[in-house]
């Protein structure tokens, strides 16, 4: 800081003017012009590192992450909908090929997207570490003493008082400390600083970003997700073989499955019965008895749509439900060959359902020959005359089960995997009714359909419900949530708290009267800094009132700083 600095508006509050006083009001890195290294490998590495952790490159990487995320939202992704991708490729073979090569069907796990965010990640760490050290240094040292010319600061005030300089400084120190400034006496002035929480918040935010990103990546790698359809009264235990389908992350190991088991006691669904939302689900809930670990105690719980059961890292979600008519099949001799609840798949929001009852062994026809039975089922939980092909309400108001039996070979042993909900009709024959038509019949609960010529009977005993459970394990989601919350609070602190400095200088003027000068400096121009300074000045002024011959209250008409001032900047520099 030189006294010959031109007093022009252009050079009013530059750091070069304020010296140590204006420095380190944040931990933002200093941008240096990129100069090319000439020092071989290490030089290049250092240069690269400096570039990577510079704010400009950080900004660029942030922009690139945003840009890179766009294609994934416009092009179908294998992760969310593989059939749509296949469709797309079929329709646009050449484009599909190009997209595939560029990884555009799985953008968020593609090499280039990973590269961008890993670079950002490194840049972030490379930024946080030095900033944290710098901040610790700032906390251990004390706020720098006042610059020589306080008039150069963004907010300034002065007055002359009859009080002794020491008295004023003492009063200022007490006042500032009471206002939670970090304040100390620095020669002829009191130096104070406040708002360190801003930096704490900012660092916490950036660290929280790292925690979130790590937790997310960890969760993806070790995640598992399986589905299981359970009929009322049935149970499930958490092993791979019990699932209907199962997906997992790259590093998942079957040993990671949380040991748990549960039984579905009852499923309850209630629906809006009138109004514009008629039929809209109001409540889905599954009453479970579950146990943790291999030998856990049985406990009861309710699982609802947005309220999964949580056991360790595993969450058990209720994702779908439907009906499972309880069916008894007897053969020609009246022997029960099948007695089970058969889950049917819903087709619409009123739970019109279809499925197949498969009697694979034990059944003998009228002639005593072993055969298989396949019975197509079509189910309406609420049957209304006039609307025979679809249910009119999702609840079990007037259930009707329509059955079409077939006999023969269901082809389940042919080696081709077969859906339990579909019937392979290539080796079966239908039954004929008295008129020679294909036999099909509507049953209400308790009713029985006789198969022709003493081939047996099928009874619809009643209706159970089933629920589909998705068991998800995504480790580290607690960390992700913790990181997210920290990020919000850190961000709020970083954006709403002002970090600012206040100096109070009190010296005896040439005429023997004490001159008080106060100045404030914020990190950014803000109306709060002068406001606060005015308030502090007001309090201090009341304690050390102005003399009658007060030329103060005029920013420009103040006495020039006297030469008798100690060189406070140097003395402050050694205060660390």
């Amino acid at each position, binding site marked *: 800081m030189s006294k010959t600095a031109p007093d022009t508006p252009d050079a009013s509050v530059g750091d070069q003017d304020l010296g140590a006083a204006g420095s380190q009001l944040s931990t933002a890195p200093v941008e240096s012009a990129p100069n090319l290294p000439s020092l071989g490998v290490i030089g290049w590495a250092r240069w690269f590192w400096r570039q990577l952790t510079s704010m400009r490159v950080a900004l660029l990487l942030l922009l690139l992450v945003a840009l890179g995320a766009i294609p994934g939202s416009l092009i179908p992704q294998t992760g969310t909908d593989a059939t749509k991708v296949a469709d797309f490729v079929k329709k646009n073979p050449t484009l599909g090929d190009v997209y595939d090569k560029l990884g555009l069907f799985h953008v968020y796990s593609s090499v280039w997207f990973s590269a961008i965010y890993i670079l950002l990640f490194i840049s972030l760490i490379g930024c946080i570490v030095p900033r944290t050290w710098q901040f610790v240094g700032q906390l251990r040292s004390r706020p720098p003493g006042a610059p020589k010319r306080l008039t150069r600061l963004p907010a300034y005030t002065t007055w002359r008082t009859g009080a002794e300089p020491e008295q004023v400084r003492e009063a200022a120190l007490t006042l500032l400390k009471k206002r939670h400034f970090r304040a100390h006496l620095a020669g002829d002035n009191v130096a104070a600083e406040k708002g360190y929480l801003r930096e704490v918040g900012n660092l916490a935010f950036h660290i929280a970003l790292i925690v979130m990103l790590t937790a997310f990546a960890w969760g993806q790698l070790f995640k598992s997700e399986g589905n299981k359809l359970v009929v009322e009264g049935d149970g499930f235990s958490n092993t791979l073989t019990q699932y209907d389908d199962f997906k997992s992350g790259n590093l998942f190991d079957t040993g990671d499955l949380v040991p748990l088991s549960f039984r579905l006691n009852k499923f309850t669904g209630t629906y809006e019965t009138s109004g514009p939302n008629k039929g809209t689900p109001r409540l889905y809930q599954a009453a479970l008895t579950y146990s943790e670990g291999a030998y856990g105690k049985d406990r009861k719980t309710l699982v609802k749509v947005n309220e999964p059961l949580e056991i360790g890292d595993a969450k058990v979600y209720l994702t779908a439900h439907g009906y499972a008519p309880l069916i008894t099949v007897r053969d020609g001799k009246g022997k029960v060959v099948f007695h089970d609840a058969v889950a049917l798949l819903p087709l619409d929001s009123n739970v019109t359902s279809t499925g197949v009852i498969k009697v694979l062994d034990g059944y003998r026809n009228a002639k005593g020959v072993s055969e298989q039975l396949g019975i197509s089922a079509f189910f309406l939980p609420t049957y209304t005359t006039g609307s025979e092909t679809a249910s009119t309400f999702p609840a079990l108001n007037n259930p009707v089960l329509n059955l079409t039996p077939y006999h023969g070979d269901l082809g389940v042993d042919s080696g081709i995997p077969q859906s339990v909900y579909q019937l392979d009709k290539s080796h079966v024959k239908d039954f004929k009714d008295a008129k020679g038509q294909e036999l099909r019949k509507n049953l209400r609960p308790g009713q029985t359909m006789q198969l022709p010529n003493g081939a047996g009977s099928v009874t619809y005993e009643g209706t159970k419900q089933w629920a589909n459970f998705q068991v998800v394990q995504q480790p580290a989601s607690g960390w992700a949530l913790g990181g997210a919350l920290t990020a919000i609070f850190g961000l709020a602190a970083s954006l709403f708290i002002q970090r600012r400095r206040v100096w109070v200088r009190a010296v005896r003027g040439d005429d023997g009267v004490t001159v008080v000068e106060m100045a404030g400096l914020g990190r950014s121009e803000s109306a709060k800094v002068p406001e606060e300074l*005015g308030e502090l000045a007001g309090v201090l002024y009341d304690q050390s009132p102005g003399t009658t011959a007060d030329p103060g209250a005029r*920013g420009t008409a103040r006495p020039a700083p006297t030469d008798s001032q100690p060189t406070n900047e140097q003395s402050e520099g050694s205060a660390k």
Partner: protein
Amino acid sequence: MTLATATNEHLANISNTLIYSSMAVYTLAFFAYIAEWLFGSRSKVGRTAAALTADTKAKGKAPAVTVNQGGSTAVLERPQVVVRSAAGARDVPDGPGAHGGDAQGDLYGRIAISLTVLAFLVELGGVIARAASVERAPWGNMYEFNITFSTVAVAVYLGLLALKKNVRWLGLFLVTTVLLDLGLAVTVLYTASDQLVPALHSYWLYIHVSTAIFCGAVFYVGAVATILYLFKDSYENKIATGGTPGRFANSVLDRLPASASLDKFAYRVNAAVFPLWTFTIIAGAIWAGDAWGRYWGWDPKETWSFITWVAYACYLHARATAGWKGRKAAYLAMLAFGCWLFNYYGVNIFVSGKHSYAGV
């Protein structure tokens, strides 16, 4: 529309009537704002030019000093705080506002604000009636979203006015776009009260969507300020480099706050709501975690919320680090708001549901 009862039908009709009425009142407010601008322009102001030309002449003389009159004037004998603006900043005073200091213009301005308040209340009634008619929160489709969004945007404006912030200049621009938004809503987007897609009920959904709408409204106010900043900044630049802006620019832009004030206002608004936007996304993730078993799945809505978030983070970074202040940062802010708009309209229209590649 299925099976709506008579009451629901009736409420829906009331809602429609209220929305149309609010449009009528907004139109009146629009004309009152126009009158404010027209009468205001009678008094020639030319403050910006005066300040800027004086500034160049005064260069090298006394430091540019403005005395802060706020607060400390109450106790006269107390020392006054002298405020200096930062290096390189132009010292342009804020324009007087649309009325241009003209008493009649000011009167029209006040009438316009009163009408805006009235229109807001009527519109709010319309939104509430709509919610009552469908028996759920009024954001089940784009029509409902549009009417709720403009209501909240006006509420933000009136709230800022009530807090005695210098935002009267926003009035005309805001009401114009609110009229466009409502016009679009009642013509193109209108949907009869219908069922919510069997949504999974969760209070997280309500938290998530309501904060999202609020954030959008605030971002919108920030975006309007940013656009005006860009115009005003060019205007000031032109004068500072000796150019003569057109008469229209002279008349309109001169009455707006100084570009530095607009810029600062836009920044404050965006920065203030950014943590809430962060929270909105996290609330959405928590809800998705509860409802779908994964908190983040890169679905288009999620992705665009993320893109918007990153774009605003870029803008804040650009502001916090030297070199990208001013116009460049303003472009980033516009880009970020563009992402927000696309998330709400574009994603619904072009990327929705099963045809995520249709229309692109």
